[in-house]
């Protein structure tokens, strides 16, 4: 019973967050200076198309009515029509979504794979040189400016060493199993670029949670019982530190997705981030709104999944409710 309740609660929270995102977007467009009609109807459209859109969104109606109409449109899966491409925003974005997911998930996996050992290293050498080194590297990583990192990687590994291709998600004219290889090859540099930024914060958190865990009573007891420190570290402390780490992944997702905007632009990676960049230069508002909502949805779902996973793994949660 309690597990079901837990899951339901998380789903509920997720739904509320989405509603919040939708409301924020709606209010932003209606309350900011400038013509709200600009947000749905391009100046290039024919008069008929424009008038149709304006009635669809009820832009001449009072705000609450507009809100309901807006929600209605969203529930039907209608995110509007792109100004520049005159096709539904949903089509434009759904084509790009898989690439962004691929990129962000790869970056997160890389972050975890490298971040955990780094955190362990730092925690077990607390306040000594290795710890300081990891701390400094971690903080530096957090402070990097994404486009600069991307260009640097492109220059060094793409142009000078020719190890990796410049931009794009895969090479033209490649099929079957080779295609996967091509996708992987194109994935490396953007993933590394994105992961470098996240790595710092993740490693630092691992370190902090581990240090806390190592200070717990049961660890002292284990040490007193003569259990070797390495075993304590890896078998007990780490396991307990993993749980907050999972939640952290969920938290990081929002930032990773934001970082993807800049990374995809530099690497010409055909994801939603790049779609946002192109939409910005054209001021294609429906695409911008739709992209934000879609990204918010992705982040919320991911957070829900990690929270639910946390709930299953952490025995304290099951017994608490």
């Amino acid at each position, binding site marked *: 019973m309690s597990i079901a309740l837990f899951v339901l609660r998380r789903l509920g929270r997720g739904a509320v967050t989405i509603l919040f995102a939708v409301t924020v977007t709606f209010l932003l467009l209606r309350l900011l200076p400038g013509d709200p009609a600009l947000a749905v109807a391009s100046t290039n459209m024919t008069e008929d198309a424009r008038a149709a859109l304006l009635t669809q969104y009820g832009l001449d109606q009072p705000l609450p009515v507009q809100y309901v109409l807006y929600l209605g449109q969203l529930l039907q899966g209608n995110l509007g029509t792109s100004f520049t491409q005159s096709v539904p925003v949903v089509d434009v974005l759904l084509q790009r979504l898989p690439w962004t997911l691929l990129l962000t998930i790869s970056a997160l996996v890389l972050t975890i794979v490298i971040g955990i050992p780094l955190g362990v290293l730092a925690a077990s050498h607390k306040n000594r040189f290795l710890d300081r080194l990891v701390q400094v590297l971690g903080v530096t990583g957090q402070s990097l400016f994404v486009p600069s990192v991307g260009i640097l990687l492109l220059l060094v590994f793409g142009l000078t060493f020719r190890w990796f291709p410049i931009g794009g*998600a895969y090479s*033209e004219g490649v099929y079957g199993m080779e295609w996967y290889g091509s996708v992987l090859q194109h994935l490396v540099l953007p993933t590394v670029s994105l992961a470098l930024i996240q790595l710092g914060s993740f490693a630092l958190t691992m370190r902090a949670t581990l240090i806390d865990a190592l200070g717990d009573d049961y660890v002292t007891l284990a040490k007193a019982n003569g259990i070797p420190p390495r075993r304590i570290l890896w078998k007990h402390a780490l396991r307990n530190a993993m749980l907050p780490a999972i939640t952290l992944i969920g938290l990081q997702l929002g930032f990773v997705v934001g970082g993807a905007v800049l990374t995809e632009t530099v*690497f*010409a990676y*055909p994801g939603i981030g*790049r779609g946002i960049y*192109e939409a910005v230069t054209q001021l294609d508002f429906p695409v911008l709104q739709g992209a934000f909502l879609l990204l918010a949805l992705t982040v919320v779902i991911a957070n829900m999944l990690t929270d639910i996973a946390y709930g299953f793994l952490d025995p304290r949660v099951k017994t608490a409710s």
Partner: protein
Amino acid sequence: MRHKTLAGAGLLAIAALALSACAPQAPEAPSGGASEAGNDTLTIATTTDVVNYNPLIGNSRSDYWVTNLMYPHLLSIGDDGAKEAQLATEWGYVDDTTGYYEIRDDMTWSDGEPLTAEDVAYTMNAVKQDQPSGTFYGQMTNFSSATAVSDTRVEIELTQPDSSIVEEIGFWGNVVPQHVFEPAGSVAEFANDGSGGWVSAGPYLLTNVQVGQSYTMERVENYPLVEGGTPIAAKVVYRVYPDVNTEILALQSGEVDVIANSLPPAQVQQLQNTDGIEVAEVTGLGYAHMTYNMQNPDLAKVEVRQALAHAADYEAIRSVVLQGQADSTGSSPLMPVLSKYYDDSITEYAFDPDQSRQLMEDAGYTADADGMYPVSFRLIYSLQDPVTSQWAQLVKDGAAQAGIRIELQGSERNTYLSQTNDGDYDIYAGNFAIMDDPVTNFSLSYLPGGAINYTYNDDAELNALIAEASQTFDEAEKISLMQEAAKIVHEQVYDNVMYTQNLYVAYSSEWDGFISKPSELLSIVNPVSVASAFRVAE
């Protein structure tokens, strides 16, 4: 335990099979025998996606480049600005209100249908009737109807004499296959997005679209417009790179062979000095200019406009912002590239702040204690245009030297366009990419109510000259009329034409055979050029 591992392995195998279904499949081998033309693929980089496959609707550069490889124009243009044959072999006027085109009889559509005068006539009539928004429709003002009098001859009826329209329609309009477009209804709404495949007259046919990534086009075997009758490269792929820096890197690393969009001026010299990269010069067909809104009472005075004209350092703009890659037109809308029309007796406004001050005084303004006159002008430009964004600042500084205050207002493109349409500015700064026919351009720019009249003038003498020229069929006479008109524009500063920019495009040294044509829309990616390109032997 073993069951679990087996089950796991089984799942993995199934997953792998399922995943392999996601990867794109190799296309079937093309039918038809191999040709002497090679098997190479030409990869071209562009910065924007293709958003629209219907060439009759106004579109962006990438749209134009891709659809141009499928839908032919009647006429092309040469380096001297004169129109050249393409689909049409002969063209002209039967009488003052009837024009004609004679077209080739050896072109076919890729699905086997012959390309005849019927397609041409259909296209023109459909555009006139359905009014798709774009430059093609913009040329149709005096067009009434088109008829295919034979398989190779089209005659067009005009509502009034118009000596430019035959060439303008021929140059700007594509010809689309009637048997594909007609069943779809209005050409203004037909997306032509390729469900069921596209139909092309060559040299290439779009076969595969990966939105945001690449557009693959395959050779159409029969393309009489290229030497040898068959395009050399077997495939052409347009790849999208939103960032010009990444584009350049891709060219340097060999991932693309050509960059279709013109290079930023600062990059030209650098790439010219790079091994493995060639830079081709493309004649510019347009100009950059400022126009002064005469609805503003200060700007309605010709002395003030002249003062502003003398308050900008054109040389500095050309040498610094454009790296010397621009030429003066003598501040005249008749550009040097249009050699027949060019009048070198019209000279550029000299950069002379003192003269500007004198002119302001003549107009009745007195400078205050700081040396500034009691005027202030708002100059609009598009932030998305990096070159204009840069010289706007220089213009402002130059005017300040002459005591004239200019306030810069850069806006993003949509705002800029709507400000332009509403006349919401004092000074308009922008550029036109192609101004190929003086009469058409003057009509649009200087006649009251003209579509691109940004100066809001109404000069009776100028109007008369333009109207007369549009109905004059004798070329020598037309030229002298336009030169007179240009002198008036120059004296009255109805337009301040600042420079015509020569464009540069980069391509890999591994390829050759490109044929450059004026303007960025054609440059080295025009159909005949792409079909003639070949990979240099090792």
